[in-house]
């Protein structure tokens, strides 16, 4: 009997499908069969459709709006303009960044495709016909598209509504187009370190404007029930509770009369964090017309109006000793925020967590300043598959370290190893103020370099360069090394809030009498697989098989309050709440088991799925038995039932990290970069579901590839947006996507209940640097230090041409 016990223990563990197992995604049965329920699947009786009239110009004054022809279109029910919203006080709305944004253009348009009027009709066709017929007369104003010219004297004033305000939400403004200056670190000490340094490398590193471009665009259905006064909005919301609170504050509808439901969401990547005019207009239209109103943006609207990302122009100086020890880092960022400051950052962090830009390195002194400016571009500034401004920061430091390595003629891997924060330095407080929880960077880097045979790659590259020199090949080989440290899991309520809402998260668990359970969370999956992985956390905590646990999210009438899913915060915050709620369940279960087994609760120990008497495991009660007793047996001193709720305020962020290596071959005649190999080692602390982690890494790397190699939203000097359709905006298919090699180390977070750190965004953060470093590395022997992204064909070719490699006569110019 005893000999068999270990086997049955294993079987019991396996049955739970808890932490560490590659449980198949429970969501996929419906997604792969087309049975998902997305916003656009919601059809209500009498539902109308809204569509926007948008500005054709980037900057102008609205002279007149004539709705008559549109209202004459059969099926058109209403045309809303700013004048219609004004009496309700809803023609402007607060942004997440403490600014205001026009819901419908109020006297001025400030970017191409800005929302000017909202046409509501019986079907989408009538609405679109109505949109065509709304006549808007504009007076052109000079567009401002270059952020570097935003604060010049004589630059056109974009925001007349706040032109005289010298104080913004984040401190003083020194120009009508200036939004804020944000600083971190010790300026004087850093400048001193630079002045006295043996070596200083400088570079201007731009991270272009891109867009998260989820498969499903943004949209909503608003339904005002005039009988009970309740407003229900189904929408693509990454933070449904925050939307409810904000909606209540904006509309003055009591919060209990607003219900926000996020149904299945087809990817968010930060695009669905913000509040957009479509939501407000749909809600107003439903309130006014008394019927449900649906608004779904099309792809071009999505790309050109709702939530761009990045657009950071980062000037850096990095100081070091001659043997490569980094002694200081200085950075100034010019941040192009577009026409309204609608960045989705915690309130106290107008530049997000950009001050993670010292990266994975022990840099004794650093200083960073960020200036945000207005331009005639769409608002946004969301964290596209990353924590707030962390990809920008990581890209900056990973380029700067490479630039420094070139200057010192050091190997990029060697300089990183030399400057890493050492394992024994954790918890480590950076020069810019973050406390890194845990890390073992050298082990990760060593494993990566060994696995890819880094020395071998460098030898091959040397031979390839010689062959190129001899004219035997027209291809250049590049090896990109990147190491990143993320800062995710926002965050501790003491310094993280959005519009005053603390960034805790929550989980509520109810155990059913027969031993199955339902758990509800304040987060919302957009493809991450929460229903799969959070059930695994719970299974390990409470001994109920994951398949017997239902996970629900996204309905504010049923789910506990939480701040939603973005910035890799679900596992660090809601995942912790889940474990903590599970532990509350277990604590009560222990008392019930003690009663049932007639022992003191201190005499019991937990084993996988049961409490057993210490030293006498034959005497035990399984969680299933305990659950039944909790509901059906009178237990002195204990309330019936088995439920728990946990609101988890994390003591710190988590700091996932990783080592990536990318190998490219560049055809200098065509500018085509072939990704020969990509190796990604991720350390996200405790691994909940390795299969899902691998899927997350694949997805994040593919988006990193897209950004590094092609994605770009640009504006011409007339203020016209380019890249606003999938014809031009680079969304890689299977053909363009290389094979990903994934690997891992596991350094648990010391402060997270199960040691998990989050992983969904790491590959985007680390990936972009690895691709870009590889492209730059291919030309490094010719003196190149940095070229701007995206590394698309023509830019790479231009680099080759600049370096005299193309052999192309000037006649081609």
């Amino acid at each position: 009997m005893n000999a068999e016990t270990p086997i049955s223990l294993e079987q019991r563990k396996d049955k739970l499908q808890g932490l560490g197992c590659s449980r198949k995604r429970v969501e996929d049965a419906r997604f792969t069969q087309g049975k998902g329920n997305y916003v656009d699947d919601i059809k209500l009786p009498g539902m109308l459709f809204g569509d926007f009239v948008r500005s054709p110009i980037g900057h102008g004054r609205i002279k007149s709006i004539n709705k008559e022809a549109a209202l004459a279109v059969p099926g058109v029910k209403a045309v809303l303009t700013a004048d219609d919203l004004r009496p309700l006080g809803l023609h402007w709305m607060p942004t997440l960044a403490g600014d205001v944004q026009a819901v419908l253009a109020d006297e001025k348009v400030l970017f191409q495709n800005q929302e000017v009027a909202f046409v509501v009709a019986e079907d989408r066709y009538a609405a679109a016909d109505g949109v065509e017929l709304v006549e808007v007369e504009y007076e052109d104003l000079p567009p401002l598209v270059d952020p570097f010219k935003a604060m010049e004297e004589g630059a056109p004033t974009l925001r007349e509504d706040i032109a005289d305000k010298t104080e913004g939400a984040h401190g003083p403004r020194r120009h009508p187009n200036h939004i804020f200056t944000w600083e971190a670190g010790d300026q004087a000490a850093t400048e001193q370190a630079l002045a006295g340094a043996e070596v200083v490398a400088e570079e201007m590193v731009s991270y272009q404007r891109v867009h998260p471009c989820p498969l499903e665009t943004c949209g909503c259905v608003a339904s005002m029930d005039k009988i009970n006064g309740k407003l229900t909005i189904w929408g693509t919301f990454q933070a449904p509770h925050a939307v409810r609170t904000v909606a209540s504050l904006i509309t003055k509808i009591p919060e209990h009369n607003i219900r926000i439901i996020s149904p299945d969401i087809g990817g968010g990547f930060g695009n669905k964090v913000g509040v957009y005019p479509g939501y407000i207009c749909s809600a107003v239209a439903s309130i006014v017309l008394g019927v449900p109103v649906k608004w779904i943006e099309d792809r071009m609207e999505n790309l050109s109006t709702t939530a761009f990302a990045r657009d950071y122009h980062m000037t850096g100086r990095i100081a070091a000793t001659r043997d490569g020890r980094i002694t200081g880092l200085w950075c100034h960022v010019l941040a192009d925020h577009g026409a309204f400051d609608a960045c989705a950052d915690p309130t106290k962090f107008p530049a997000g967590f950009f001050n993670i830009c010292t990266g994975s390195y022990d840099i004794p002194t650093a200083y960073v300043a960020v200036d945000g400016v207005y331009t005639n571009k769409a608002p946004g500034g969301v964290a596209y598959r990353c924590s707030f401004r962390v990809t920008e920061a990581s890209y900056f430091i990973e380029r700067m370290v490479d630039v420094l390595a070139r200057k010192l003629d050091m190997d990029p891997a060697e300089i990183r190893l030399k400057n890493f924060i050492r394992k024994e330095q954790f918890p480590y407080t950076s020069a810019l103020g973050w406390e890194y929880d845990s890390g073992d960077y050298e082990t990760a880097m060593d494993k990566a370099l060994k696995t890819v045979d880094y020395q071998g790659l460098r030898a091959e590259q040397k031979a390839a360069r010689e062959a190129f020199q001899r004219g035997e090949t027209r291809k250049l080989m590049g090896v990109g090394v990147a190491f990143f440290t993320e800062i995710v899991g926002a965050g501790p309520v003491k310094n993280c809030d959005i519009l005053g809402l603390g960034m805790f998260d929550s989980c509520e668990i109810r155990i059913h009498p027969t031993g199955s359970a339902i758990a509800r969370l304040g987060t919302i999956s957009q493809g991450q697989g929460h229903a799969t992985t959070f059930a695994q956390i719970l299974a390990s905590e409470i001994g109920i098989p994951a398949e017997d646990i239902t996970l629900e999210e996204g309905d504010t009438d049923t789910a506990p309050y939480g701040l939603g899913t973005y910035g890799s915060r679900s596992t660090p915050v809601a995942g912790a709440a889940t474990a903590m709620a599970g532990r509350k369940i277990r604590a009560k279960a222990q008392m019930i088991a003690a009663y049932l087994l007639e022992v003191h609760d201190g005499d019991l120990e937990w084993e996988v799925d049961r409490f057993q008497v210490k030293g006498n495991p034959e005497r035990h009660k399984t969680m299933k038995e305990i659950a039944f007793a909790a509901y059906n047996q009178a237990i002195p001193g204990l309330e019936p039932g088995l439920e728990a709720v946990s609101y988890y305020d994390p003591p710190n962020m988590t700091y996932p990290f990783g080592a990536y290596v990318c190998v490219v071959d560049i055809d200098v005649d065509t500018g085509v970069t072939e990704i020969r190999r990509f190796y990604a080692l991720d350390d996200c602390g405790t691994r909940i579901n390795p299969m899902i982690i691998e899927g997350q890494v694949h997805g994040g790397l593919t988006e990193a590839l897209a950004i590094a190699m092609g994605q770009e939203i640009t504006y011409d000097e007339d203020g016209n947006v380019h890249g606003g359709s999938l014809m031009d905006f680079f969304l890689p298919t299977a053909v363009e996507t290389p094979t990903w090699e994934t690997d891992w180390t596991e350094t648990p977070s010391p402060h997270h209940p199960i040691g998990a750190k989050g992983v969904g965004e790491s590959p985007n953060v680390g990936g972009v640097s690895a691709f870009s470093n590889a492209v730059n590395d291919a030309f490094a022997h010719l003196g190149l230090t940095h070229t701007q992204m995206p590394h698309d064909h023509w830019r790479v070719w231009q680099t080759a041409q600049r370096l005299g490699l193309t052999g192309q006569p000037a006649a081609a110019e």
Partner: protein
Amino acid sequence: MIPGAFDYHRPRTLDEAISLLASLGEESRVVAGGHSLIPMMKLRMAVPEHLIDLREVAELRGIAVEGGQITIGAMTTQQEVIGSEELASACPILREAALQIADPQIRSLGTLGGNVANGDPGNDMPAVMQALDAAFVLRGPEGEREVVARAFYEGPFTTALGEGEVLAAIRIAAPAAGHGWAYEKQKRKIGDYATAAAAVLLELEGGTCRKASVALTNVGDTPLHAADAEAALVGSSLDAAAVEAAAAAARAIAEPAEDGRGPRAFRVHLTGVMVARAIEAAKRRAG
């Protein structure tokens, strides 16, 4: 992305289609797969009142290879072109080019006729047809006429197709046995139009180029027949100097737009690279 209102017609015969076109007048358009026209309608850049769908017109489908003459019905899909062994052996450049158009889903609906008749400079088949010196059979109320591909394209979306005319078929004299061929296309991603592309056909005799055809895609308002590039090749051994001379001649006529695919200088340069690579590939294949 919602088109304006239109009436939809689905004739069964070409005569019926032509008489519909005549009776419905200027505001009617034929649709032959719809992968260019429908997106333009969704953007309301095209707002036809009547759409005449040719998909049920059986006489417009099919591939015939007889006595060195190839006839392809205008409604033959790219997928049918790719799948035809007869075509692959008589005129392999067609399969090579068709495989570089968009993606399998689009190729299964998009037609050869639609691709060549729409006049979109981004389409691939027009340059291939110019290289092949194909003729387009046009049918209208006045009857049938032929216009050669090299004279068909007048400007962006402007062709020799007359009002009320429908492209019925494409006629190609099969290239000589043993010819070399290549369609070299560089694009940013699957589904994209060419940044630059070149169609090349070569005939060699004893190591000397006897005949050469070169045409270019998406580096001008229309497909470009590169006659000077051809002249640079004929009579040569296709040595490096001749290849560079042909590439230079192609660059000289390229006038690409400056767009997300790159600045003009890059696309002009790439035109030369595509031509040179197409010549090299065609030379390797010529037997």
